[in-house]
């Protein structure tokens, strides 16, 4: 009788251990999936503010125009300052206004997600940023 009880205990123990290991495995799989998702999320979710905001057309227009204007303004400002400091008027303004315009276009394209950002040489190409 005691044998039978011991056997029963042993069986139960085995069963609970099997259940435990199965549960551990399940949890591990879940964790792995979550990690994968987090990693993928990091690579695809981080492409910038354009994904962040399901923006209306108005917001989008405001964003892109501010990018363009910012580039042109910075170029013009730097050109003007160089002209004043170095006395090379009007060449600084001409050259840096053009460069600033190019930088503004670059900003717009980056902000619209058409080209990759600057910090992207090598393997991390694409939308990952």
């Amino acid at each position, binding site marked *: 009788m005691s044998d039978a009880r011991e056997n029963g205990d042993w069986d139960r123990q085995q069963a609970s251990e099997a259940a435990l290991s199965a549960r551990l495995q399940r949890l591990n799989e879940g964790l792995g999936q979550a990690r994968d998702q987090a990693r993928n*999320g*990091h690579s695809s*979710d*981080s492409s*910038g*503010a354009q994904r*962040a*905001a399901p*923006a209306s057309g108005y*917001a989008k227009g*405001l*964003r892109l125009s*501010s*990018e363009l*204007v*910012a*580039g042109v*303004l*910075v*170029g013009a400002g*730097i050109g003007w300052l160089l002209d004043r400091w170095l006395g090379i008027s009007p060449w600084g303004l001409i050259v*840096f206004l053009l*460069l*600033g315009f*190019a*930088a*503004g276009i*670059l*900003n717009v394209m*980056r902000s619209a997600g058409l080209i990759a*950002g*600057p*910090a*992207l*040489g*090598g*393997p*991390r190409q694409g939308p990952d*940023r």
Partner: protein
Amino acid sequence: MQLDPIHQFEIKNFWPLFNLGGHQISFTNSALYMFIIVALVSLLLIGCTTRRAVVPGRLQSIAEISYEFVANTVRSSAGTEGMKFFPFVFTLFMFVLCANVIGLIPYSFTVTSQLIVTVCLALLVFFIVVGYGFWRNGLHFLNLFVPKGVPKLILPAIVAIEVLSFMSRPISHSVRLFANMLAGHITLQVFAGFVIMLGGAGVLGIFGATLPFIMVVLLFALELLVAFLQAYVFAILTCIYLNDAIHPGH
């Protein structure tokens, strides 16, 4: 009620404090609202986290949700290494969010509709990015401006454009927040002005005034969304710029 839509952005001097280089430094309504915002955020977060229940109450949920929201933003755009900037980003986010939302209360003042405030915040981010980038990566940080696989011939022009693009960041960063708040508040005020003007024009006018009134209600809801969205955009742009300082090209 003022019908002038710009009147709400007026700076009022409360107490003149001292002169600094010919400029008068005063305690203004803008400064007052900034103090209110900081006090409110601090009180909210300290008050929310004193009880620290395992099952969070309503107030504690606010603190936890805002923490997790910003933490996820930082992790997804600047990586786990960016988490050392979490306190900074969280402070910025809560400050801008609170400023935007408080600004929506009628008769209050919107701090973020002042260009100088947003420019200061954006420049703070800019200098932290530059300083940390050089401190952590040394001159390697300058690789940010040298894209890979560009022919040597046009490299100087590309580098100049990249540098200009980098330097234009604080402008677009600050103008985006400022312009959104300014435009939203002016629109609200203009439509509210229509309600008053039409309402003063007899019985027919009162019927006509319902249309802009409905518009004001809808715009107010939109502005609430914009207030949150712009705070989020400000925070995520900060994270993206910090990411450049942490991982500048390889």
